[in-house]
Each structure stands twice: as structure tokens, then as C-alpha cells.
């Protein structure tokens, strides 16, 4: 079971992860990225490259299933306006044993951060907004998997 999805509605983590727990494996790992309550930010705007986004998420998922023995994986990314406190991204992995599930989950979120065509803009209560800058630490974490 492999699922990737771009969503303009609130991500329901429990509903997305439930199928992973039903695959007969012993381990489900998940990561949820949340719009952080940072410095006056009230919402995050997520832009993406519609013609490329889904294919790029599927390529990451295929790389993960090629590298680790997974029973299933889920990758859901929100786009549009996202209020602080709401999920931006959900990664879920299922495997027979925990090492595979945990490592593949970390791999997927680390590589999504550097490879998938999404851009975040922070909107503040005073009406100002700024594009989020990349972090060198993201490149370092993604490089770890090479």
C-alpha cells in the first residue's frame, strides 16, 4: 500500500494512518509537521508545482520502498492557507519490524524537505508576510541518506 496525496483540506492523521496499522506488520511510524506558533505567525501559505508535486512524492515513496522492506507508506501534504496549529505534512510507514518503519519515516520527511516542490510563506497578524528561507541543516539531514 502506497499513498501520496496533495490536500487542500485539513489532514486527518488518524484516518490516514489507520490503514497502515491493518497491514499485519508489527510497526507503524509517523511524522506530522505542524504550522508552528512562531513569532506572530498566524497562517502558512503553501505554494506548490501542481504538474510535478505528486510525481515527486511518489518518487520519494518508491525510493523508500526500494531501500527498506515496507508493508506500506503514506505521504500527505497540505497546500493553500494553513492556520497555525494545523498539520502541513503527514508521513506514515508500516513494516514488520521497527527499524525499517522508523528509518523510512525519517528518510521520507528529510528528503521531502529538499526535493519536493513546495514553498512556504508566513503570514503575520500585522498583515506582513515573508517567504520561508531554507535551512542548511535540512540539506545536511537529506545528504545523510545519500
Amino acid at each position, binding site marked *: 500500500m502506497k499513498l501520496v496525496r496533495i490536500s487542500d483540506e485539513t489532514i486527518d492523521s488518524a484516518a490516514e494512518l489507520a490503514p497502515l496499522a491493518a497491514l499485519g506488520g508489527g510497526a507503524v511510524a509517523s511524522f506530522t509537521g505542524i504550522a508552528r506558533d512562531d513569532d506572530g505567525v498566524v497562517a502558512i501559505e503553501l505554494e506548490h508545482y501542481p504538474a510535478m508535486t505528486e510525481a515527486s512524492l511518489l518518487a520519494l515513496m518508491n525510493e523508500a520502498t526500494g531501500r527498506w522492506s515496507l508493508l506500506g507508506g503514506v505521504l500527505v501534504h497540505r497546500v493553500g492557507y494553513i492556520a497555525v496549529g494545523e498539520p502541513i*505534512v503527514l508521513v506514515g510507514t508500516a513494516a514488520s519490524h521497527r527499524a525499517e518503519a522508523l528509518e523510512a519515516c525519517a528518510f521520507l520527511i528529510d528528503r521531502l524537505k529538499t526535493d519536493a516542490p513546495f514553498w512556504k*510563506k508566513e503570514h503575520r497578524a500585522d498583515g506582513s508576510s515573508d517567504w520561508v528561507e531554507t535551512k542548511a541543516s535540512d540539506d545536511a539531514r537529506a545528504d545523510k541518506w545519500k
Partner: protein
Amino acid sequence: MSASSIWIEALKLVYFARVREAVGLESEDRELPSDVQTVGDCVVWLAAQADNYASAFADHSRLRYALDQQLVWEETLLEGADELAIFPPVTGG
């Protein structure tokens, strides 16, 4: 007319995030001169088209590229491609 001058007429440029805002367009079709062979050539050529293009495409270290929806580098040849996307480093997740 050479084969290379045919595909060049059809190149669609798409812009995202800060680049889109600086250019003021989401996408445009451009005929490129025949000496524009690589992604990097195209960016240099675009920077000379207008002042807002100059600022959008000045700092190559803050630009990334996808050719026909595949991440590529400045050295990649445009030949045969339909769509070049130019954008800042991604910040999703």
C-alpha cells in the same frame, strides 16, 4: 531551419514563490535565441530582459530548476524540453 530552433519556440517557463512574485507572472512562453543551450544560459538571458527579471534571476545560488518536472542543474541542456520551472530552494514539509 534546424531541429533545435523548432523546439526552442515551444519552451514554457514557469515560476514559483519569490521568483513568481519578482517576475510578476506564473508562466510565459518564450522564443529563446539559438545560443541559449543550457538551463544556466536561459537564466542569464532572462535576467537581461527587464529590470524585474534582473532582480529575480540575479543570484543563482538562490535558484533551483526543473526541466519537464525533473530537478536539474544549470549545466543541463534544454534540448527537447517543453517546460522549464525556475524557483527558490524548496521549503515544504
